[in-house]
């Protein structure tokens, strides 16, 4: 089973070479064959009764990250959709995309998407699933940005990426959580162990994270805003990714985990409410659009909301209807996108305000559109598949019984909202069809003179429309081998169901008729009530919220970062020192680290005190003097004082070295600063002065405190006794310090010299390389 998943990736490698001959041989021809082979391969699973198959291919077994493909009813429904629609879209794209386009890139993205999507729906391993999930987002990003010379393309690509990757990351959080609780990376095993997850104290968080992933991907309110902007992608992509397949990955995810999640009351509340809300909002907003693809985008949003809601209901009918509608939606929406593409291709515009009356010019296209549109509207006719699933949707919305206050409120509201959303679904369907194909043609406004599309372009939508009709007439044709299996996999128990056209004159039918009646009225009177959009949503749009967030995240970051990363060394040092002082003293306090032990101290002698006091005064003097020569000389006093201390504390070598180095340093100081401006008063502001003092006193205090505490906690003998004992014996020298330096710690010395050498080279290059400005 790994081959069909990898096949698109493998072919993708060859596409760049193949596309070199695109003028003679359209790259899409090869690409069409790939999903066809995959479709045939997976369709063969029907033969001889279907049962779930699992295949494992090792990838990173040490991390439990393997390619485990689990083909059950749910994934079978999806793989057939992906490969089936994929074939039709690839075929359609041959006519849609001219060979002057960058076909190589297009088909590489296309194939990567297809492979990832197949992998996504087949993966039983959560990490493999996540990998494929992100790859669908990325290929979607690249496809939306296919015409990246357009600003809108770049904008839409970024938007979709930010929102879907945000969802992907929260999905990852949920998956890692579940892995951490159950100890398995297999979804099937997680489902088997669902009690552990449901009873975990983190279950609410897991649920939210998982649903964030699903809602962003499946364009649920309020994350749907990326989908309309994704319409910048070439139309075959919109038909494929942003309608039939990728946006259903979120539904897939919810369906996949619903055997576990559906027992949670909050799952019902959240998923149903967001689904219904999305249905209503999407269908309501669709009528406002003027771009054909915009209408279809919002229509997709609303349909996804409807399916999501049904998954939230979680009843047997609802789950069945959800699976059924996933298929139906792919057929009619796919064909409608292709129709929109044809209209765009043939007239040069997708603006519905310029279109109209195209029925006479594109009769075939119009006929196909008609079937699609009425199926989408759920018009009660026996040859339209959309009606069946819509009817089941109504049915399922009626038998909800929520436990708990909140759930029962949701349950009681659902039927009304379902009707409301469906009325607008009806309205935008009519708006789409009549606005484009009926009414008066206004050829003057069109960039091109319209004529019927080439036959090749009509094949794919025609096949889809044929499916609409076949499924409508013979629902059992797809029910038993297909939908029932999928529904059973999702419901967790047998969920097969018969599909009838006539259910008797019951409540769902009344709801359907209500929809048609009110829908017709509203559709006829759109201009009269369209002003409502200036109140809701009015100026408060979610897009603005998104733009605001993105812009602000950049401008806020700039402001904040420029605020403290201002290049001022003093500020940096203050922040660094402040942190060190605060944290260290806090740890002193927390660990009770202070110690003072006066029993083993060396005696205090007058001469030491004099030296120490002199050094202290000199050190303070460097702060207060405004004379550069004086400052350098006072610094010298500190250095010479230090060498005095070295003598007193029996470190003759140090004293000597310090003396020499201090002298050289002072000379260097004088030499360098002879060329620089003289010191003037420091010109610190008062607050700066105070904070400087606080920081420096704080740090001095810290050093003193740690020094005293360390000195008072000599718990171990020093390793130095070894040096004293062995200096002569093994090192052959009387001067222990020297022996340590050149022998016992010789490595230090070698690299200490290296440091000097490096400094010399750096100084040499500093002096020698002339700056452009100086020349």
């Amino acid at each position, binding site marked *: 089973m790994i081959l069909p998943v990898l096949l698109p990736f493998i072919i993708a490698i060859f596409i760049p070479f193949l596309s070199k001959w695109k003028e003679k041989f359209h790259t899409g021809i090869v690409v069409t064959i790939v999903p066809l082979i995959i479709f045939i391969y997976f369709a063969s699973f029907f033969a001889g009764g279907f049962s779930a198959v699992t295949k494992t291919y090792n990838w990173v077994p040490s991390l439990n990250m393997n390619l485990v493909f689990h083909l059950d009813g749910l994934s079978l429904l999806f793989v057939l959709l992906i490969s089936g629609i994929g074939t039709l879209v690839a075929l359609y794209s041959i006519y849609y995309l001219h060979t002057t386009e960058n076909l190589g890139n297009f088909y590489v993205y296309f194939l990567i998407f297809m492979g990832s999507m197949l992998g996504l729906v087949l993966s039983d391993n959560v990490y493999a699933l996540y990998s494929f999930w992100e790859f669908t987002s990325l290929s979607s990003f690249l496809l939306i940005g296919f015409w990246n010379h357009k600003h809108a393309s770049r904008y839409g690509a970024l938007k979709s990426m930010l929102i879907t990757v945000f969802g992907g990351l929260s999905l990852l959080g949920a998956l890692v959580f579940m892995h951490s609780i159950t100890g398995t990376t297999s979804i099937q095993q997680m489902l088997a162990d669902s009690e552990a997850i449901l009873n975990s104290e983190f279950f609410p968080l897991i649920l939210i994270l998982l649903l964030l992933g699903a809602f962003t991907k499946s364009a649920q309110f309020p994350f749907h805003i990326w989908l309309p902007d994704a319409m910048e992608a070439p139309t075959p992509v919109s038909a494929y990714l942003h309608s039939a397949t990728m946006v259903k990955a979120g539904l897939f995810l919810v369906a996949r985990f619903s055997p576990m999640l559906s027992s949670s009351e909050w799952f019902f509340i959240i998923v149903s409410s967001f689904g219904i809300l999305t249905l209503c909002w999407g269908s309501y907003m669709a009528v406002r659009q003027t771009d054909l693809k915009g209408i279809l985008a919002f229509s997709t949003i609303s349909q996804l909301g409807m399916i999501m809601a049904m998954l939230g209901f979680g009843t047997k009918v609802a789950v069945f209807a959800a699976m059924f509608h996933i298929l139906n939606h792919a057929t009619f929406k796919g064909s409608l996108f292709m129709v929109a593409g044809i209209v765009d291709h043939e007239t040069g515009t997708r603006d519905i305000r310029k279109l109209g009356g195209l029925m006479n010019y594109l009769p075939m296209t119009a006929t196909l559109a008609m079937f699609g549109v009425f199926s989408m509207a759920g018009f009660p006719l026996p040859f339209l598949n959309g009606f069946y699933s819509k009817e089941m949707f109504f049915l399922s919305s009626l038998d909800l019984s929520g436990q708990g206050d909140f759930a029962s409120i949701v349950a009681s509201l659902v039927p009304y909202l379902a009707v409301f959303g469906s009325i607008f679904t009806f309205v935008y369907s009519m708006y789409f069809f009549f606005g484009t194909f009926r009414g008066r043609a206004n050829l003057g406004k069109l960039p091109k003179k319209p004529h019927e599309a080439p036959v090749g372009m009509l094949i794919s939508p025609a096949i889809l429309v044929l499916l609409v009709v076949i499924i409508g007439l013979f629902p059992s044709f797809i029910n038993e081998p297909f939908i029932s299996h999928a529904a059973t996999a999702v419901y967790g128990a047998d969920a097969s169901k018969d599909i009838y056209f006539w259910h008797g004159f019951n409540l769902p039918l009344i709801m359907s008729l209500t929809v048609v009646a009110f829908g017709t009225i509203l559709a006829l009177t759109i201009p009269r009530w369209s002003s409502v959009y200036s109140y809701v949503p009015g100026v408060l749009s979610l897009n603005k919220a998104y733009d605001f967030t993105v812009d602000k995240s950049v401008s806020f970051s700039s402001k904040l970062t420029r605020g403290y990363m201002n290049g001022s060394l003093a500020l940096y040092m203050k922040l660094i020192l402040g942190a060190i002082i605060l944290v260290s003293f806090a740890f002193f306090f927390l660990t009770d680290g202070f110690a003072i032990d006066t029993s083993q101290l060396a*005696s205090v002698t007058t001469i030491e005190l004099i030296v120490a006091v002199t050094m202290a005064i000199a*050190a303070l003097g460097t702060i207060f003097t405004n004379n550069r020569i004086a400052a350098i000389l006072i610094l010298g006093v500190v250095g010479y004082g230090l060498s005095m201390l070295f003598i007193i504390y029996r470190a003759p070598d140090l004293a000597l070295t310090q003396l020499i180095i201090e002298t050289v340093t002072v000379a260097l100081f004088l030499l360098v600063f002879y060329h620089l401006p003289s010191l003037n008063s420091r010109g610190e502001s008062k607050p700066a002065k105070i904070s*400087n003092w606080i920081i*420096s006193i704080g740090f001095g205090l810290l*050093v003193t405190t740690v020094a*005293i505490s360390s000195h008072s906690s000599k718990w171990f003998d*020093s390793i130095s006794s070894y040096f*004293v004992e062995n200096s002569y014996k093994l090192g052959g020298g009387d001067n*222990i310090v020297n022996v340590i330096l050149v022998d016992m*710690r010789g490595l230090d010395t070698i690299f200490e010299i290296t440091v000097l050498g490096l400094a010399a080279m750096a100084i040499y290059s500093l002096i020698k390389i002339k700056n452009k400005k100086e020349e």
Partner: protein
Amino acid sequence: MEIVMSVLAGLLFMTGVYNLLQKQLLRIVIGTALISHGAHLTILTMGKLKDGAAPILTDGVENYTDPLPQALILTSIVISFGVTSLLLVLAYRASKINHTDNMEKLRGNDYE
């Protein structure tokens, strides 16, 4: 005495840090020099002070001051010297090219 030396080291660090927080390059470099002195004094103090003779083997002497801190200080002094020299030359070059010895005027947001 160790306590006095600890306080002195703290004071050297304090004055060093205070100078480091100033604007003028000269003061800043002086600050680093003071901090080095403070560090070296601390290392010395952390061995035992005056606890025995200078660490040069002499007949009849049993007790020597801890030689290891001295060795470490020696290494550190030399390294500090290298860094300070580089810093001085760099300070000179940087202030010449940028026409100022005021660190606050050397903030800069251009990177070319």
